[in-house]
């Protein structure tokens, strides 16, 4: 019997296999359960590819989407259209990376408690967006394609970011049958996924680089004869601006003057500063990564000149440029934008956004001059009357895209008011002059954002 009893160890061996295998699983569970619970299609979090366990509200707690059982959007058609690029649609044509990024927090998942919440309480995602500003922006964009965005350059909260064309997710248009091109790029969130030739708004970057590197640049005067010849090729202005100070050249958006400055800086320095200012960087926030911009100014002098005025191979992403603008507005350090303010499940707060400020990229002196010049643009050229109650600093741009299309109209700037720390960017495709198209849009959108902050 001793022998047989001793051989019982084989049963213990099997028990050991079970315990070891199960312990291995427990280790996997502890380290990976958070991924499993919110893996796309996880039944308590998703319905198909769509998050299915929470509601999304705007900064004023206005319901944008109810995702508890299927997907119900706002009752207002205008609001549905104005937010579709952030909330996504039912069919996955537009994804909602900022929402799915927080699947775990929306579901209220934690290792010990799982997704349990008392009484099956639903997650509430509070966005930084203002529904009313979104609608105002959508309306202001009219039939133009493009994007307009406003964010708080002190905190990073995106108050408004609208992309057109947009559509009503509850009433999807027949896109396949359309021949007018009205729906081209319909599913693209242009604010984060597109890049644009910046045109003259890039002169802010060139000016900043010049202020940082050329000591006496402010004392210079620049003569514009309507064109500036470089090695047999020309940089042109629409009119001859004559003799102008740096400030005048900036407000006239004089290509000839900025071509000279660019050449004096040299392609290498320009590229260094473009990189330092982060205007071509990818920005990452709330699970979103923006499209990368492009800046090349290394080869022939004429290309350096065109690069310096925002043409050539320049490409900027609206969100990234807006982030750079926050450094100009806010004292030399940029503030990272964000879309999701907080997430609560029942009485528990599972997420709260934080302010992320970047490194100092502009000296105080440069910031001061840039602010003064940008302010001068609005005061002398664009008209303060467009922005009642706000002290706006801005620069327009008219970016030639070539072909039969009209130029892209661009505008970027900020409000200098302590109460309204708003930076903005307007990009309108196939539009014409920046000032003519963008300023009315910015006027309406900023007014709506001001109101949102007042409330």
């Amino acid at each position, binding site marked *: *019997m001793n022998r047989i009893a001793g051989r*019982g160890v*084989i049963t213990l061996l*099997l028990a050991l*296999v079970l315990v070891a*295998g199960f312990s291995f699983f427990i280790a996997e569970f502890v380290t990976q359960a958070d991924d499993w619970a919110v893996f796309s299609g996880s*039944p308590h979090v998703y319905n198909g590819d769509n998050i299915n366990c929470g509601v999304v509200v705007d900064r004023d707690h206005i319901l944008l989407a109810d995702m508890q059982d299927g997907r119900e959007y706002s009752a207002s058609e205008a609001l549905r259209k104005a937010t579709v690029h952030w909330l996504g649609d039912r069919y996955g044509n537009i994804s909602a990376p900022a929402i799915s990024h927080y699947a775990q927090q929306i579901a209220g998942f934690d*290792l*010990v408690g799982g997704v349990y919440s008392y009484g099956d309480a639903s997650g509430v995602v509070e966005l930084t967006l203002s529904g009313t500003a979104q609608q105002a922006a959508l309306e202001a964009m009219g039939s133009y394609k493009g994007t307009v965005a406003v964010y708080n350059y002190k905190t990073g909260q995106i108050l408004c970011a609208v992309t057109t064309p947009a559509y009503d997710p509850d009433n999807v248009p027949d896109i396949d049958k359309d021949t007018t091109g009205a729906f081209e790029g319909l599913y693209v969130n242009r604010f984060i996924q597109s890049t644009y030739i910046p045109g003259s708004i890039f002169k802010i970057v060139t000016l900043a680089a010049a202020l940082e590197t050329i000591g006496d640049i402010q004392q210079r005067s620049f003569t514009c004869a309507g064109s500036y010849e470089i090695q047999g090729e020309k940089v042109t202005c629409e009119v001859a601006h004559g003799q102008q100070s740096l400030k005048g050249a900036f407000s006239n958006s004089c290509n000839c003057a900025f071509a000279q400055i660019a050449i004096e800086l040299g392609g290498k320095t320009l590229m260094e500063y473009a990189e330092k200012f982060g205007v071509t960087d990818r920005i990452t926030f709330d699970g979103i990564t923006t499209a990368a911009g492009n800046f090349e100014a290394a080869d022939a002098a004429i290309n350096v000149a065109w690069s310096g005025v925002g043409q050539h191979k320049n490409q900027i992403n609206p969100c990234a440029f807006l982030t750079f603008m926050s450094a100009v507005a806010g004292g030399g350090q940029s503030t990272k934008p964000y879309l999701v303010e907080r997430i609560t499940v029942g009485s528990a707060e599972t997420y709260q956004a934080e302010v992320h400020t970047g490194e100092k990229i502009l000296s105080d002196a440069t910031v001061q001059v840039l602010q003064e010049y940008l302010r001068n643009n609005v005061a002398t050229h664009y008209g303060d009357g467009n922005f009642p109650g706000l002290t706006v600093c801005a620069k327009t741009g008219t970016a030639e895209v070539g072909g039969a299309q009209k130029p892209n109209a661009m505008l970027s700037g900020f409000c200098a008011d302590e109460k309204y720390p708003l930076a903005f960017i307007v990009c309108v495709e196939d539009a014409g002059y920046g000032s003519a198209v963008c300023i009315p849009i910015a006027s309406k959108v900023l007014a709506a954002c001001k109101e949102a902050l007042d409330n």
Partner: protein
Amino acid sequence: MLTGAFDMNPTFYNVYISILRYAAPILAAIILFRCILPLVSFRREPEIWGWLCLPDETKLPITHWENVIGRSKRSDIVVDFPTVSRTHGVLTRYDDGSWTITDTDSSGGVFVNGKKIEIRALKPDDVITIGGIDMTLQPISAKQEARLAHHRARGSSFLTGLSNVLLLTLLQIFCCLAYVMGGQTDSAQSVLLGFGGIMVCQWLLLLFYVCIRRVSFEVETIAFFLCTMGMAAIAAVCPEEAIKQLVAMGMGLVTFLLVGWSLRDLERAKKIRYIAAVAGIGFLVITLLFGQEYYGAKNWLVIGSVSIQPSELSKVCFVFVGASALDRLVKKRNLLLFIGYSVAMCGCLALMNDFGTALIFFCAFLVIAYLRSGSVGTLALAVTALGFAGVVALKIAPHALQRFASWRHIWEDPFDAGYQQTRALMCMASGGFFGIGAGQGWMKNVFAADSDVVIATISEEWGLIMVVLIVLSIVALAIFAVRSAILGRSSFYTIGACTASSILLVQVILNTLGTVDVLPLTGVTFPFLSNGGSSMICAWGLLAFIKAADTRQNASFAVRLVKNGGEEDE
């Protein structure tokens, strides 16, 4: 009526669930701790059943009912003389206190009163001669035997058993209420019947034990606990099948008692062994001839409206076949017949495409082969053979290959090959340690949520801790079986208990680790837990073998109270 009242008060339900998700695992832990502790810690003192008196007046103690006499140090009674064979003979005690001695093909032979014998019942004062040494057997007296029984580790007291069952009943009531409140109104009746039925069964069994003066109820309490959680899974997935499962559990209990009864008498058990051998292979052959194919495996037998998986019943038969008393075991070391039988069984299962069950039989075969021969070489040979068979099987059955292909890669194909397991892991993660609440789960939408991947269903609704407890309770049964082995009255029981618990373990390994993608998913049931009548009956049948090895005093109905042994008790 009950449901209607609760429907109107969803807040009560929410409060109830929020408390129960912590209370249920705590209660389960208390029950299992109380049951497992005596199983893994009971005192195992050597018992002396007699002495072998040598001419020089030394007395060699006889510590088992079946004893190998020989020169080898691992013999139960070591007689270290060069003329004695390493394994010379076997001394066996019977229920009635009588003894026999068997010659195990020793070179020198065994003589009783000068006559060479093969096997011989020993009378008092018979002189046994082994290797030229004369010795006499001196059994313990009736008084000594009574003292032995008195000092033997006892099964836990009636009160402990009673309070465990009371606690379990409490858990069952809590579970039942949660499903009645959280489920559909029309399913409330079957849920009530399902849980209520288990309660009635466990109390009836306890009552029966009291009547036959057996008090130990730990093993049964663990089984009823597992049945309860299985019923919870059924209530979550398919409440309409609760009654069917209850009937299966009833049949399982009858099987448990029948198998236990047949094991009570070793001579009877030895005879039944032959019937079991025929039945075991017979079940499989009949299935092979008349079976129905479901989900790729032809392992179902449909008789009228009842469908059974005869291969489950064959498992119990297989344990019978594999078990053997020591005299026979030592004498006939040859495993060929048993190997042939096992190959035939596995072959039938392979033909049915039921590779999961074939694997269980193979593991059971390994365990039995090792217990009987102690030869690691045999095992190595068998495993190698399985390797070849496995390669061939995978060539023939691409269905099985697909499971291997997705093994550890389930997240790469979450909608097809990895569907069941990814949903299982997602739901287990969603449940966390304490579950999302009875009746709140999603696993019911997954195929086999109440059988092949049942632990995910339980983990989702009751939490990971509950699943850990469930797995540990099976491990505890196995440890108990092995600990009992040394006190086994016969190697028949020791082999039976170790094999039965090994089968339970293998099933849990394949089921649990398959569900969570540590192993490929094989579609094997979890004993007592999975919905399925045949599996339930098999699990109870196997449990009887564990009970038959439980020699604690007054512990097991499958062990006779020793004659003269329980005078104070009888």
